[in-house]
């Protein structure tokens, strides 16, 4: 998510227009290099997943699909996938439920501390995952002591923590789609007889749908891939997929890990392509 290197036009001097080919080659070259830089790990991991030999080395001795089978036979990968998926979906829904009203308030109302609130919503993006995980760990222990409610190691506790890292994405993207939204269409709905909740459901929500869908997608991906924060919060014997991968890597380095990564990349890729068919994500991101 963080490898966005802008290459939409380096500053070309005005007199370069007569030497167009040079400028264009330079631009294409830089763009190509950047794209290659982003894609290289993906390509290598995907290639590795099909290697036949157990110890990754170049050149490959041959190709095989056995590692994909190994993933499906590995209990901790399967249960890790299921937990990550459940937590991702629940955290995304919770994060949206919190971020949407917050974005609406920030976009529409003028109140004291408005810009502070807007910064606060993006904070979880800036705080390192390890710090976030450690502080939530302490917080959950203290809460357990104070209230006697089970927190640490529960799925609920994990979902609550993941909602925190979904919120910045949801808030940012919903706010972006609200920027081009004409509030008088809500007034028009009310004028035609729609009470506030109906107005929100029938008029506001459909208008911010691209931001909502994109926010949900990015939020889910962030949650699904999160390792550092989750390390502190999972219960014994209940791991998320990234943790299962890490634990596997402590003992083995065979291409099973590459295979599970490819499956994860494919899943997210498909989700993006499918989403993009219904909402043009590029409109809001």
């Amino acid at each position, binding site marked *: 998510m963080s490898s966005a290197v802008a290459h939409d036009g380096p500053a070309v001097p005005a007199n370069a227009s007569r030497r167009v080919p040079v400028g264009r080659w330079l631009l294409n070259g830089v763009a190509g290099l950047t794209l290659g830089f982003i894609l290289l790990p993906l390509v290598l991991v995907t290639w590795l997943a099909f290697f036949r030999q157990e110890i990754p080395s170049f050149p490959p001795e041959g190709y095989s699909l056995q590692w994909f089978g190994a993933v499906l036979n590995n209990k901790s990968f399967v249960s890790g996938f299921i937990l990550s998926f459940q937590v991702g979906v629940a955290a995304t829904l919770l994060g949206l439920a919190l971020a949407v009203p917050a974005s609406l308030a920030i976009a529409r109302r003028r109140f004291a501390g408005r810009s502070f609130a807007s910064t606060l919503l993006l904070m979880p993006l800036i705080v390192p995952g390890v710090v976030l995980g450690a502080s939530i760990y302490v917080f959950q222990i203290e809460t357990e002591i104070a209230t006697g409610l089970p927190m640490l190691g529960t799925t609920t506790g994990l979902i609550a923590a993941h909602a925190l890292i979904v919120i910045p994405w949801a808030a940012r993207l919903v706010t972006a789609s609200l920027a081009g939204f*004409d509030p*008088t269409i809500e*007034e*028009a*709905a009310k*004028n*035609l*007889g729609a009470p506030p909740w109906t107005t929100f459901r029938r008029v506001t929500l*459909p208008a911010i749908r691209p931001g909502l869908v994109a926010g949900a997608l990015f939020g889910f991906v962030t949650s699904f891939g999160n390792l550092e924060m989750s390390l502190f919060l999972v219960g014994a014997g209940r791991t998320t997929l990234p943790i299962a991968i890490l634990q596997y890597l402590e003992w083995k380095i065979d291409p099973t890990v590459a295979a599970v990564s490819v499956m994860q990349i494919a899943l997210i890729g498909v989700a993006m392509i499918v989403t993009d068919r219904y909402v043009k994500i590029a409109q809001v991101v």
Partner: protein
Amino acid sequence: MARLELIDLSKHYGDQVAVVGVTLDVADGEFLVLLGPSGCGKTTTLRMIAGLVEPSGGSARIGGTDCTHLPPWRRNTGMVFQSYALFPHMTVAENVAFGLEMRKLAKPEIEARTKEALRLVRLEGYAARLPRQLSGGQQQRVALARALAIRPDVLLLDEPLSNLDAKLREEVRIEIRELQRQLGLTTVMVTHDQEEALTVADRLVVMAEGEIRQIGSQRDLYERPADRFVAGFVGRSTFLDGRVTTPGEFETAGGLRLKCAAGAAGAAALLLRPERLHLGGENLDNRLPGRVEFVSYLGAVLELHVRLSPADRVLVQLPNRGEGAPAVGDDVEIGWHRDAGMVFAQQRN
């Protein structure tokens, strides 16, 4: 359709005054226009009628029922917004049907009334289009159809024509007026365009600084403006500053002595409508020499800016009769009847 009454309606934002003491009685089926410069409180007044702005004081009654503090969705007003405010994700038909769905009508009736509303604005063939696939004029008509479909007690139009080009504006305003007559709709329109206001209104309300300055017919406002602001806002005019020496005598700041309609002695302004001034002054009460300083050629008419004294310049409108029109630099004689000059004592504006 219903009578609309506003009684001493006002709106403050903090210590900022938006509307003060607006009292209006709009008869059933009447077309009332609120006219005034931007920021005069006309739109706030309209939004209070719709319930989109809560009044700070006074009351509003629609069809005899007090609705001062009723939320917008419980009133039966149909509003056409300046930006049209169409729902971008709904088709034309869905936009028009929205208000009917909110009224929980049966599906066949919703369909029938949607069709009827689209027929009224001549958009039958566009039901399945999305708003962004329509031109500005068509979008405006969808907004109108949407407001008409709910059969509102009061139709509210907020600068409905300001986003259309000049030619279309003229057509649409006549269409709106005809529809309003045909349906007998009580209508309040807000505009800053006086020509638009004069074309469609049964009665006009001129507002400035949150207050009503004058209520009356087109003729009332033009021939008998209540104050200098109304006189300046409605129609074209020249004001000569000076004072009334004795009733019927006016002396301009530039020292010209003119005959005028009565008026109390003291500092005042003399209003002259450009079409009431004539070239050549035979048999007229005022006859003055002047020099043409500027000529606007407007097709059917010519407008001359004529200098009468170092401090006094007047605007004269002449029908375009072809050859022989004065040119810049020509010496001319200007004349007008004393009743053509209206005197406003110098107070506000």
